[in-house]
Each structure stands twice: as structure tokens, then as C-alpha cells.
């Protein structure tokens, strides 16, 4: 257990120039990817500038445990950009963590399917189990992604306090954390990385710091056991995304992992009935094995996701990172956790821990995510339009197929589809490309052909393979 600390004279400086100094103590509430990455980067950067600080991560859960108790409940996709950034940062994701390398996306619609592959058949996206695995696992033959990151943080010098924070108060400008049956602990910086599926965020609304919890929506996540061989033969190394005209359903994906397939649904008032309707769709049945029974689930959850980040994800000596602050709309939540965690670590080490420092240096990072999400809403409106209008779906398929037939042609539609599904590029970038004159001309030329029903129809296993040129 951490011991109480008397701050040094330098760290007691007045508000506005508060900074971490030798002996400073930092608390991270929540040991998911945002918290673990923050702790790792903070300690790594502190070492680089010869700063000796202590970091305590408050995390009562053990992520190695199977079932919901050890799971941070999400689809478990490590995006292309995050895979590359982590690799450049020296954070390796070993094959025990990556349950399946993903080298392509297959878009399924009622009018056909299109496969969009990465260049050079490279596994650029990682499918992971966030926790110890679905409820029916007795002994996991993999390593939990969240556990891997938290061990990396402890290797960097962070200490895990396996307790839940019950109360947060201020004392002389600093924050004091209280856990059940423990001594109150005072910290020079507190970083909140709890996600949105917790009641602790209410506590911060009561601190009078202008923090309001993010707006959330429900998602549905189910895990199905199929076995590695069956998955290799059916879903393979592709993530399967669905643009189906099912009421209330906005987006759905099937993510193959080692022995399991994760089903992820986004939409309005998500519930079990919507999950069942999706599972019954012929496009889904065509992808899954013939004897698949959607009723036989290994695990299921209905977690909340952040759909509108907080306006002020900081206060004096206090930061909100990952889902409890600002995240990307619908996609790449772990990528946003990485971005906000690393920005928070950079600011805390190099700019200070005052409200002014956070406003000047941390807020712009959050704002760039928030403003990109605004554009993202329009981009998703266009995909909704495609969901409702059959001829738009035909055009998408036709243009993508034409790009495949002409490999030298720049794959504009394919790269848009890839980036929308993979979450690898900013929405503003994708949105601009949606209105590129060349793409509009291609779509306009495709329109008469789609009326004549010339759009290629695909059968399972015979998808149009379209390689995207890298232009992200």
C-alpha cells in the first residue's frame, strides 16, 4: 500500500505553475488501456528527464480472469494506426496477445460483398481478447490485452493497488483518494481512466470542477465459440462488417479471434432482440458456419460507449483520459485511449500539472478528436443513407468492383470503406475523400449500370478482392 507523502517545496508552488518534481506521487484510477499506457509513458518520459516519481494504479479487477469480472467489454480491435504507433513506441504485441492478425475487411450488403485487403497481405490490425476471455473459458490459451499492458506499466515501475476508489476530495489544492479500509492518500496528480461503465465518475461531478460525464449509448457484444479450424475456413483473417437495412441497427461486425468470434452491434436502443435479428440475417448466416446456433453464446454484454466526450476533461492536478474524457466516435476507442494517455503523460512531464497547462496543451488534443467526431457524424449519416437506399449500396459495390478490375486505378471507394471500418484515418480526411470529384464521376457513371442490375453479386468465399492503396 502506498504511503502518505509530504510534497517537496517546489511541488507546492501556487496554482498555475504546479509541476511534477522528484518524489511526486501520481494516481491513476482504472487500469484499462488508457490508464496502463498513461502510467507506462509517464514513467518512461520521467526516466528520460531524470525525474523520480511514483505511480499508483487503482484497479480492483484482474484482467487475466475469464468472464465479465476481468473484461473491459469491447470488440477488441487494435486499429492499423494504433498497431503501428505502438510498434514505433517499442510496445510489442506478442502472438499470445494478438488472437488473430487481420489483413482485410469484407463489407456485406444485401446486394453483394466486397473484400478490401491490406497491401502485401500484411496483418495490419490485431484482434484481441480484452480480458481473460468469454465466460465459458476455463483455462485461457492466450494473454489478455489489458493484462499485457498493465504488466508493461508495472515493469516500468507503476504499482497496482487492487482496490476501488470510493471517494475523491481536495485538500489544499491536491487530490485525496479514499479506498475502503485504507488510509486517505494525497496525490500531486490524479488521472481518471475508468471508462464510462462505472459510477465513480459521479464523484467528479460533485467536485465543482466543471466536469460532466460523457454522453453514452449502449452496444451489444456477444462471443461465440467456433474453434480455430472452423474460423480459418469461414471468417478467416478478415473482419466482416455489415451494412444491412435492419431497423435500429447502424453498424455491425463479426471479428474472428483465436477460437471465438466476437459480434459487435451499434445502433439505437440496442437490445437482445436486435442481436437476434442481426444473427438471423441471410448475409450473416452466409458468413458463419452452416451449423451455427446463435442461441449458443459463450458470453454477452451490453456495455456503454462514449458518444459525446466531456467539454472540460481536466482541472487543477486532475485529468480525464480515454473513454472517461474524450474518445473517437464509434471506432478505435483504444486508439483514442492511447492518444489521450500519451498526450496527458507528455503534458504532465514537460508542461506541468496545473489547470492552465492542461488547457493549453492537453485540451487541443481532445478538441481535435471532438471536432473530428463532428465530421464523423456526417460521415455516418452517409453510411446510414446507404443502409436505407438500395441503389446507393449498388453504386458502392459497383465502384469498388470496378476499382478491382483496374488495379492501376486509385482505389478511392475502397480506401474510404477501409478507413470507415478500420477507424485508421481521421473522419475529416475520409469525409473530404467522399466528395472527391473523381469518385463522384465514377459513382455517376455507375448509376445507370446499377439500374440495369449489373452490380456483381458475390457468393460466400468469392468476394471481390480489392487492395487499397495506402493514402492515409
Amino acid at each position, binding site marked *: 500500500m502506498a504511503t502518505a507523502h509530504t510534497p517537496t517545496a517546489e511541488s507546492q508552488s501556487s496554482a498555475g505553475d504546479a509541476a511534477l518534481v522528484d518524489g511526486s506521487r501520481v494516481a491513476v484510477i482504472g487500469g484499462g488501456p488508457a490508464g496502463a499506457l498513461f502510467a507506462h509513458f509517464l514513467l518512461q518520459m520521467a526516466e528520460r528527464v531524470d525525474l523520480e516519481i511514483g505511480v499508483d494504479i487503482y484497479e480492483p479487477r484482474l484482467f487475466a480472469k475469464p468472464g465479465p469480472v476481468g473484461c473491459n467489454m469491447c470488440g477488441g480491435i487494435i486499429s492499423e494506426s494504433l498497431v*503501428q504507433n505502438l510498434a*514505433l513506441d517499442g510496445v510489442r504485441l506478442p502472438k499470445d496477445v494478438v*488472437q488473430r492478425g487481420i489483413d482485410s475487411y469484407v463489407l456485406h450488403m444485401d446486394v453483394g460483398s466486397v473484400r478490401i485487403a491490406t497491401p502485401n497481405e500484411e*496483418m495490419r490490425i490485431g484482434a484481441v481478447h480484452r480480458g481473460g476471455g468469454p465466460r465459458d473459458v476455463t483455462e485461457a490459451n492466450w494473454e489478455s490485452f489489458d493484462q499485457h499492458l498493465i504488466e508493461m506499466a508495472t515493469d516500468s515501475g507503476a504499482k497496482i493497488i487492487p482496490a476501488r476508489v470510493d471517494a475523491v476530495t481536495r485538500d489544499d489544492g491536491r487530490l485525496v483518494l479514499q479506498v475502503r479500509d485504507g488510509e486517505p492518500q494525497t496525490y500531486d496528480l490524479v488521472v481518471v481512466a475508468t471508462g464510462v461503465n462505472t459510477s465513480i465518475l459521479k464523484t467528479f461531478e460533485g467536485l465543482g470542477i466543471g466536469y460532466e460525464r460523457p454522453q453514452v449509448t449502449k452496444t451489444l457484444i456477444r462471443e461465440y465459440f467456433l474453434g480455430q479450424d472452423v474460423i480459418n475456413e469461414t471468417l478467416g483473417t478478415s473482419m466482416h462488417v455489415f451494412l444491412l437495412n435492419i431497423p435500429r441497427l447502424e453498424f455491425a461486425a463479426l471479428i474472428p479471434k483465436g477460437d471465438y468470434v466476437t459480434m459487435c452491434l451499434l445502433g439505437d436502443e440496442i437490445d437482445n432482440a436486435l442481436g437476434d435479428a442481426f444473427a438471423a440475417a441471410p448475409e450473416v448466416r452466409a458468413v458463419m458456419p452452416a451449423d451455427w446456433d446463435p442461441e449458443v453464446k459463450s458470453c454477452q454484454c451490453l456495455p456503454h460507449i462514449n458518444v459525446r466526450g466531456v467539454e472540460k476533461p481536466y482541472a487543477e492536478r486532475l485529468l480525464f483520459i480515454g473513454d472517461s474524457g474524450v474518445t473517437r466516435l464509434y471506432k478505435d476507442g483504444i486508439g483514442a485511449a492511447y492518444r489521450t494517455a500519451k498526450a496527458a503523460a507528455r503534458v504532465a512531464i514537460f508542461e506541468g500539472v496545473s489547470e492552465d497547462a492542461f488547457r493549453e496543451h492537453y485540451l487541443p488534443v481532445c478538441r481535435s478528436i471532438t471536432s473530428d467526431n463532428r465530421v464523423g457524424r456526417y460521415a455516418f449519416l452517409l453510411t446510414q443513407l446507404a443502409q436505407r437506399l438500395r441503389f446507393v449500396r449498388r453504386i458502392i459495390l459497383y465502384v469498388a468492383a470496378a476499382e478491382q478490375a483496374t488495379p492501376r486505378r486509385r482505389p478511392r471507394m475502397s480506401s474510404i470503406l477501409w478507413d470507415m471500418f478500420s477507424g485508421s484515418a481521421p473522419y475529416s480526411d475520409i469525409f473530404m475523400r467522399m466528395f472527391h470529384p473523381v469518385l463522384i464521376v465514377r459513382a455517376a457513371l455507375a448509376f445507370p449500370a446499377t439500374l440495369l442490375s449489373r452490380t456483381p453479386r458475390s457468393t460466400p468465399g468469392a468476394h471481390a478482392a480489392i487492395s487499397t492503396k495506402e493514402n*492515409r
Partner: protein
Amino acid sequence: MSEAALGRLYEDGEIVVRQGEVGDCLYVIQDGTVEFLTEEDGTEVILRTAGANEVFGEMAIFERQTRSATVRARGPARILTVDKKNFMRRINEDPSLAFNLVVTMSHRVRELSHEVVQLEAELRSLRAGAGSAHADG
């Protein structure tokens, strides 16, 4: 090596980059080992090897020059690519992303300096040996 891994799988002996090619990406080894070699008068000279987590190919990106050596998989190796444009954009957004690369390049400069010192010492002793042999003769 299973499908549960990132990057592209290179078979034993497969060339990852070829000396003299124009480089537009850098590489991060996920699993396995690669060897760096140059060809001098038709003879292969193995310069060094690299293993998991090591970055290579950055010289051609930073200096806008061709690849300085050929890189070949020694045994099966999984390697991830990061293209130049993305890499530069990300460094611009987050300069700390270059920390790790600077450390890697610093290690290499240190190793090379050590090798130069060793080679000079060997050369001196060879010269001294040749000198004394000459004097003896």
C-alpha cells in the same frame, strides 16, 4: 508462426529490402530475426542481425536515399511496415514517437563507434606485427 500475429510473414532467406532500392517505408520486426548484408565485388558481407521489436529502414526515409543494405529473413520472420507519409505525419502530431527511434539509432552509433575502435586496434596490431616481422626479416 501462426495467424495470431501482426505484420507479414517472410520465409527463411526471403529478401525484405534490397540494397539500392528507393525506400518509402520503415519496418518493425514483430517476431524472428533478419540479417543485414552488403555485396562487395560479388561477395556477401553480413553486417549485423536484428530481432523482435527492432526498427530498421529509417535511414533511407530520413536521408531520402536508397537502401544502404539488403535485409534478409534468417528463419521465418514477421515484419510490420510503416509507410513514410504516415510516419512523418505521426511524428509531426506526436514528436515523442521519435524517442524510441532516436534511442535505437543512438545504440547503433555507439556499436559502430565500438567496432571502429576495435578495428583500429586490430589494424594497429597487424601493422605492428608486420613492422616487427619486417624488422626481424
